[in-house]
């Protein structure tokens, strides 16, 4: 850095401060994004972002990872404040005071043209203190409510159950407040009003300091402590802080691993046998229940009333054949060479010989085949009885 730059630039933020700010950005932004998409999960934009992150469960994991990083950053911040205060012995500059209230009133008066100049302010203006303490308050609240959301069972062991949904409402409400405050207050003061790069570069020009933090320039600076004194304080502070940080980190570890809230698979409330047919159910193929029960058990002689025709001639037998046999044993389609279409055809028989042996139904194939049952075009018992009687009577044509 050139000598002129040194003469006009004043160190405002140490490397540690600047890193803390970077850590703040890198946790706040992902937390805000992954949190907002959960709060407004119904919107298309949220769902697009959720998909981008690999689904809602991933979003929740990302949110929690950054929450843990933020909490670690808080532990670091506490150490940094302590170091400044107790080792370097730098006076408090962020603490709220009556002077801030006065400065706020005077700024208001200036803005309302009741005053000609802005009130001179110190290292941190009241506007900056508002932002810092909002952040502190917000972080405490988010950590506390976040704990309840992360560990609802543990939370409900101590607190009433309704604290969990209340914590959810507060976590979401505070998040919206914080995000809007950053977008309005923070962006106005360090980006819009004029771009204040000091948190990144670490330096402010003398002019800027004179305009914004004049009291910081005129503040009495205590003599820096001697090297021995510094070493002595550091040797006292570092172990103490380390112990405190260790306890806090254990606390964070507990925070993130406290409970397994839920099991991974839901067991169904009921588990009936999916397929449990009613025993009386009939097979669908059986046309009706009656058919199904009678069809397989019915011996044809037990239920059929036998009525032998008075006129046992072709005139009464022919129609039986016509109704049940001619499809296969007709004049045009003589299955097995047999036609039962006419009296003469019937007597002539088929390839296997005569179907009808007049006077001897016992050797007539037409009877033996039908009485054996199961022939397509099965005659019923009454029809077979008539056929038998007709053959017995010599199978007369007329």
């Amino acid at each position, binding site marked *: 850095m050139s000598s002129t730059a040194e003469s006009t630039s004043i160190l405002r933020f140490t490397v540690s401060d600047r890193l803390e700010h970077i850590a703040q950005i890198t946790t706040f932004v992902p937390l805000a994004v992954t949190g907002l998409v959960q709060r407004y999960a*119904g919107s298309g934009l949220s769902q697009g972002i959720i998909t981008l992150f690999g689904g809602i469960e991933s979003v929740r994991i990302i949110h929690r990872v950054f929450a843990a990083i933020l909490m670690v950053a808080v532990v670091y911040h506490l150490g940094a404040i302590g170091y400044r205060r107790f080792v370097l012995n730098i006076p408090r500059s962020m603490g709220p005071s009556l002077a801030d209230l006065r400065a706020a009133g005077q700024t208001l008066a200036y803005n309302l043209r009741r005053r000609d100049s802005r009130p001179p302010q110190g290292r941190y203006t009241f506007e900056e203190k508002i932002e810092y303490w909002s952040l502190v308050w917000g972080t405490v609240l988010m950590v506390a409510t976040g704990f309840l959301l992360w560990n609802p*069972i543990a939370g409900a062991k101590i607190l009433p159950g309704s604290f969990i949904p209340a914590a959810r409402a507060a976590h979401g409400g505070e998040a919206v407040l914080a995000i809007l405050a950053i977008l309005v207050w923070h962006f106005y003061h360090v980006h819009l009003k004029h771009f204040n790069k000091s948190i990144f570069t670490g330096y402010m020009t003398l002019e800027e300091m004179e305009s914004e933090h004049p009291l910081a320039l005129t503040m009495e600076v205590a003599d820096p402590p001697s090297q021995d004194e510094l070493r002595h304080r550091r040797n006292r502070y570092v172990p103490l802080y380390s112990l405190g940080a260790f306890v806090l980190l254990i606390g964070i570890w507990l925070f993130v691993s406290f409970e397994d809230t839920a099991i991974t*698979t839901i067991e169904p409330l009921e588990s009936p046998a999916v397929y449990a047919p009613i025993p009386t159910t009939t097979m669908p193929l059986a046309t009706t229940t009656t058919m199904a029960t009678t069809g397989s058990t019915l011996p*044809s002689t037990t239920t059929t009333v036998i009525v032998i025709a008075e006129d046992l001639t072709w005139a009464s037998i022919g129609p039986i054949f016509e109704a049940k046999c001619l499809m296969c044993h007709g004049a045009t389609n003589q299955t097995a060479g047999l036609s039962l279409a006419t009296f003469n055809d019937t007597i002539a028989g088929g390839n296997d010989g005569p179907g009808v042996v007049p006077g001897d139904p016992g050797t007539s194939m037409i009877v033996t085949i039908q009485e054996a049952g199961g022939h397509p075009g099965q005659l019923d018992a009454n029809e077979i009885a008539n056929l038998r009687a007709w053959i017995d009577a010599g199978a007369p044509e007329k």
Partner: protein
Amino acid sequence: MDTDRNIDSDLNVATFDRPDGPRWAARRSSVRRLTAGAFALIACTALLMLAFDPGGVASAQDDARFNNDTCLSCHDVPSLEVPLPSGETLNATVDSDTYAASVHGQLELPCVLCHTDIDGYPHPEVVAETLRDFAVERYTSCFGCHQDQYSATVDNVHARARAEGNSAAAVCTDCHGAHDVARPSHNDVDITQTCRSCHSEVYDLYAGSVHGAALTDGNTDVPTCTDCHGVHDSQGPTDTNFHLFSPQLCADCHADQELMGKYGISTDVFDTYVSDFHGSTVVLFEELAPDQETNKPVCVDCHGVHHITAPTDPESSVFKENILSTCQRCHPDATTNFPAAWLSHYQPSPGKTTLVFVVRLFYRILIPVVIGAMLVYIIFDLARRGRFHRKAERVQHS
């Protein structure tokens, strides 16, 4: 989301080719549509070829081989039996009166319209090993006339079970019957009885539920099997997206103000579910990752599935005294206070879950007040700065 609750409207198969109801149909993938379309095209072509074939269906009534009387001349006879390799007996008897009374019989549809493999006698040999195989073999001919209904079944829960080797899974004829097929009655009780024939254990649970008991009392507002599971495109709990989608099935009725008004039941149940942790997760999974499981519960996981009872019923899993053990099914470590973390479907109000109401109200006031104050400050600050700059410019110019 389709909120039409009349899923049973797709039972109106008054004529051929009536598409299935919108609910599941809309959820069918286009690939499946294409498959079904191709299937339909092939079948239509086949039917057309049959129509131009002189021995085909068009001339069925003229050709004795395709005349129902011809078929019935054999098949109307009892004890027409075909032994199967399984030892079962295929009863090939058709009661002509039963068929005549069926919806197909009333239309005098020829037997061969369904029995497409028959074109005379002797018939082709029965290749089915079991009665069930025969039924599964034969039901495919339903597609010839009922393409849409049939196509809707090709990817349903039964078809998938069958594809996995469970031949007992229902085919068309199991629900509709075969030779005794009747017009669907659309009667809620009939529907439950049809499903009961295979799912008797599920039916018994349903019959004891608040829905089933009301149906027994003649109340048809309640859901029957098909209202939740669909008709031809029936879905079941083995479908991941069925579980995820199920809250919307419940909402179809339980978010219906008119319907719920009749019974004094709150219609907030769906919205309150979705606005909380479980519901928002389930909806996100349903919309973004329907093929994935989540361990977050849906309605039935807390309330019960088929055996669902009113929350006021001491038997109910969400009855006040039972709710902790219901929570513990997923949250084994939950204790007495834990169930109150869930707002029991109440919108936060001064009377119910006061704390949540107060927190929400607090942020509803705090956010606009704080952000508003910041904006007011910024506006005054900008105005003053603008004036200051103009003044400064004037001073410079003079």
